[in-house]
């Protein structure tokens, strides 16, 4: 049986080749995602292991349980603690250090990095066991005085800095110039995962990070024979209140957790795209097997006639699927390594430094890739295999083309509508859920909608196919039209594969347009400030220095900073805006109570308040990162959600959070100062802070648009894979249909149809199928978009926008995809030898 199956596969290798490609692409994406994330994990694990390799324990200020960026230490320790620690029994060596934000400015005056890996500033530690930084011979020396800095070899190489060069470095104080006295390696690596590093003397670091007479951490090496746990115990005895003692391993783990969390989102997103690709692949596979089985009716019947049981025929087709699945999954897994390299390159190009090093291929990746590919192929071939078993032996003796029995369309309509409705219900339920299951339920709902519409698609195939074909001119158009409707199921499932990709792309367009419209609306309504300042660095906001220097300008009347941080209510981490009273003069949150009046209380967004069932005047328990639980009164509501759904005042609650950098700083120009004059006046302030962006209202809107457009481009790019697989599906179906129609094409050629007309006919057929799929897709996309946008109305998505131009573009691109899909089959059909085509069996 296996041999017969193998022969079957080989005999249909061209047909199955395209199918394999559909599996290969999906599996490659799955495997690629795993390889990529495993690689990042492995690289970071090695790096952090190196960082903390020599440290047995550290004392640091007690860290908030939530609300702080991973890897940044909040608070400080008194310098005097170092002596007490050093004299503790079991401590071999101890060193205090400070860390903070420092961003290197390149020769062109632009900040280096900051959009991904951190820009680290720190103090030099002399004890080699406590620091992973190493300066090799010829690379200079450690910093020994003010105005000196050591930077990492990687950054120096990338930015062209050499020993003795002057380098400008930005900190919260502004920008200062330092001399590069040393270039440090990180253990054996030249760089820490894309981070930039600026290392100063301890005094200089304390000054730059505003931590005079204090440390952010005291790191300790244990004496021989003292375990890390023992050491922690002893240190805890000397450690003052509000500090904590942690082992090196714990810190490694904390750092890794921070990365894994960030990576978790990326993994989920990539796997979701991979899932879409696999789903589309499943359609293509099912369609191919169905057609192949139909075309082999005679062969299968012959097997039955010579004594094969129905079960054996099923097994035969299933085995063929298994062989195809196995081979393509294997190719897919191998290609996944290339995909991972591609994702890595794309991330690097996007400014996120992914550490160099070999790609990690875990056994799990291979198992997952193979399983996904095999299961999807086998499951997709299941129905066609069962159908194959029902071929009666007598079919061997009759004409090849069994007439397609017009299946009960009513039954199909009913089940299609039912499944679609079920999917829609799931989708709506998912969108209104408040907890973490949302994504899964929404995903399942969308999937079910796709299946429902696919069941319905054959019902639409005939009317829509005829309608779409109508404008096509001439006999080629008519033939193309009739060819698309003669096998409605085939046309429908080919189109359905394209539907999925187009639906998701349309959804993204609609969602993005709605965000764009909502953001523009919000900004138009609420942004009376003249200028807004924000940071391009992911991990650091706008320094208070910027705030105070702007205040000092006579062209500027008012300056107001908004910070955002996290609070916890009922254990749920929530974004909170911390605003100054005068923000009202800059930005209209549309509150029911004036900000100046909120005092110790809290404002909660109108709709959120209603949803939570609170009323103004309620006292709720709020957990703040720096001070913990504190009962807080709800004093009013507001509308604008730009700074989150919860707002507290800087005056009353500013100190309940760590860090003093602002998320955004607004400025109002003094009377009689023009916008240009105002911008001009701020330039000297900004000169010291190259990573601060200044925006006018128009800039803000443009920037928001740019971000949304970037999102659309990224998602559309990723979904493009699903579209490509669907196009392969169209090409595959066409190629198979053409084989079926060999004699017919021969006849058309014999009675005078030119090769060009044959090509035109096939192309038109592909275009009709593609547009059919795209119309279904855009329709489903509009539905998904509408459901999502309206359910997110509470979260600031106030307007539902239909980007007609973009949706039209997707339709046009689908038509183009049809043309591309048709290229191969059309050429093949046109090249057919007339005589042999006419006598084709």
């Amino acid at each position, binding site marked *: 049986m296996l041999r017969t199956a193998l022969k079957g596969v080989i005999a249909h290798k061209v047909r199955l080749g395209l199918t394999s490609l559909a599996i290969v692409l999906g599996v490659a994406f799955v495997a690629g995602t795993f390889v990529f994330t495993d690689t990042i994990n492995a690289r970071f694990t090695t790096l952090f292991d190196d960082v903390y390799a020599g440290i047995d324990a550290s004392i640091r200020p007690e860290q908030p349980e939530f609300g702080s960026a991973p890897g940044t230490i909040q608070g400080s320790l008194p310098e005097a603690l170092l002596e007490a620690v050093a004299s503790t029994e079991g401590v071999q060596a101890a060193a205090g250090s400070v860390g903070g934000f420092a961003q290197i400015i390149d020769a062109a005056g632009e900040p280096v990095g900051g959009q991904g890996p951190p820009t680290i500033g720190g103090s030099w530690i002399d004890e080699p066991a406590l620091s992973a930084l190493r300066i090799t011979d010829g690379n200079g020396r450690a910093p020994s005085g003010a105005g000196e800095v050591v930077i990492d070899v990687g950054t120096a190489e990338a930015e062209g800095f050499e020993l003795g060069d002057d380098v400008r470095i930005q900190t919260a104080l502004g920008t200062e110039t330092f001399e590069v006295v040393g270039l440090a390696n990180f253990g054996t690596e030249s760089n820490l995962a894309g981070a930039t590093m600026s290392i100063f003397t301890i005094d200089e670091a304390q000054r730059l990070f505003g931590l005079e007479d204090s440390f952010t951490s005291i790191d300790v090496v244990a004496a021989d024979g003292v375990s890390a746990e023992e050491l922690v115990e002893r240190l805890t005895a000397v450690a003052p209140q509000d500090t904590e003692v942690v082992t090196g391993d714990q810190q490694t783990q904390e750092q890794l957790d921070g990365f894994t969390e960030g990576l978790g989102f990326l993994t989920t997103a990539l796997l979701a795209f991979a899932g879409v690709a696999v789903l589309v692949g499943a359609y293509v596979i099912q369609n191919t097997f169905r057609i192949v089985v139909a075309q082999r009716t005679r062969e299968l019947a012959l097997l039955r006639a010579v004594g094969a049981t129905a079960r054996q025929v099923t097994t035969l087709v299933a085995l063929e699927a298994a062989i195809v699945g196995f081979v393509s999954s294997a190719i897919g897994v191998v290609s996944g390594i290339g995909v991972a390299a591609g994702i890595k390159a794309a991330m690097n190009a996007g400014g996120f430094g992914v550490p160099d090093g070999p790609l990690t291929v875990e056994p799990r990746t291979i198992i997952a890739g193979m399983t996904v590919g095999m299961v999807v192929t086998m499951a997709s071939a299941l129905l066609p295999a069962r159908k194959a078993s029902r071929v009666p032996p007598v079919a061997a003796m009759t004409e090849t083309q069994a*007439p397609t029995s017009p299946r009960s369309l009513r039954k199909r309509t009913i089940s299609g509508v039912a499944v679609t409705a079920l999917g829609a219900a799931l989708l709506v339920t998912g969108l209104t859920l408040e907890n973490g299951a949302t994504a899964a339920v929404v995903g399942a709902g969308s999937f079910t909608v796709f299946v429902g519409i696919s069941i319905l698609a054959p019902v639409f195939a005939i009317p829509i196919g005829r309608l779409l074909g109508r404008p096509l001119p*001439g*006999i080629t158009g*008519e*033939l193309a039209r*009739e*060819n698309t409707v*003669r096998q409605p199921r085939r046309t429908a499932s080919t189109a359905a594969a394209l539907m999925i990709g187009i639906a998701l792309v349309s959804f993204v367009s609609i969602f993005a347009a709605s965000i764009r419209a909502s953001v523009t609306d919000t900004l138009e309504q609420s942004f009376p400030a003249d200028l807004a300042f924000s940071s391009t660095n992911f991990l650091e906001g706008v320094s208070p220095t910027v705030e105070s220097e702007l205040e000092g300008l006579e062209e500027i009347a008012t300056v107001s900073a908004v910070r955002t941080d996290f609070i916890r209510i009922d254990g749920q981490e929530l974004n909170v805006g911390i605003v100054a009273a005068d923000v009202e003069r800059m930005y209209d949150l549309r509150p029911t109570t004036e900000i100046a009046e909120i005092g110790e209380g809290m404002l909660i967004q109108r709709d959120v308040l209603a949803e939570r069932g609170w009323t103004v005047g309620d006292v709720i328990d709020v957990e703040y990162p720096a001070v913990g639980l504190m009962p807080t009164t709800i004093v009013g509501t507001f509308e604008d959600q730009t700074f989150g759904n919860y707002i507290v005042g800087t005056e009353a609650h500013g100190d309940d959070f760590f860090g003093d950098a602002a998320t955004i700083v607004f400025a109002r120009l003094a009377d009689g100062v023009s916008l240009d004059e105002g911008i001009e006046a701020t330039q000297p302030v900004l000169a010291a802070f190259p990573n601060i962006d200044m925006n006018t209202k128009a800039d803000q809107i443009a920037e928001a648009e740019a971000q949304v457009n970037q999102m659309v481009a990224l998602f559309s790019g990723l979904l493009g894979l699903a579209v490509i697989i669907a196009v392969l599906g169209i090409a595959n179906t066409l190629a198979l249909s053409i084989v079926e129609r060999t*004699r*017919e094409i021969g*006849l*058309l*050629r*014999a*009675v*005078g*149809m*030119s*090769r060009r*007309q044959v090509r035109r006919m096939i192309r038109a057929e592909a275009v009709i199928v593609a547009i059919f799929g795209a119309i279904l897709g855009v329709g489903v996309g509009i539905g998904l978009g509408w459901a999502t946008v309206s359910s997110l109305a509470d979260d600031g998505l106030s307007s539902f926008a239909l980007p007609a131009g973009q949706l039209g573009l997707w339709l046009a691109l689908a038509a183009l995809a049809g043309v591309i899909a048709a290229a191969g089959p059309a050429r093949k059909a046109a090249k057919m030898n*007339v*005589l042999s085509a*006419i006598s084709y069996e």
Partner: protein
Amino acid sequence: MTLAPPRTDVAASILDGVKVYGAGDATVRALDGVTFEFPRGQFTAIMGPSGSGKSTMLHTLAGLDTLTSGRVEIGGVDLGSLNDRELTMLRRDNVGFVFQAFNLVPTLTARENIVLPLSIAGTKPDEQWLQQVVKTVGLADRLSHRPSELSGGQQQRVAAARALVSQPEIIFADEPSGNLDSRSGAELLGFMRRAVKGLGQTIVMVTHDPVAAGYADGVVFLADGRIVDGLDDPTPESVLERMKTLGG
């Protein structure tokens, strides 16, 4: 494409036609020096045992296949001088076909199948002529049917009507009644004969059936790729007689 106006009384001709298949030991001379002129307005039958080269002769005459050597002309045009595009247009405008089976496009109605060559050319049918053709084949009430709704005989008559509709220089039919029962076959052949006698068409038909050959104005006998005999105004009996002598 339009052919040169000088309409001689020869619709098509083959001169020293040689067709060789394969190479080396497996070489087959399907046509081995065939020369023949098909008179205009005549119904000519080509007969011969299986493998004698009948289909090959028909295909090369119709421009569906090329000769290894020799020359084929339709309406005075040398097919050897035409490229693929020109050959296609020649078939479209100047040649009609009736094959043994699978003559029709299943997605088109009978009427659409009949006017297919005109549709391909992008021209409108001459309604009067179309009516006449349809009436002659007796399909007036079947025009909106699809091939699957027509009997085998009706399908072949549709094919014949299609061959006639563009008023081609010549019509080639390869065993057109081969798959039909004798009554349907007789209807089809009767129609083809009327097309020649009443409408002035030229038809060349391959057949192995003496009854079918009896409808023709003349018969050419092929054996081993050569013309071995001919017969004018054949009857089934005279054809059978001649076949016996040739066979023996």
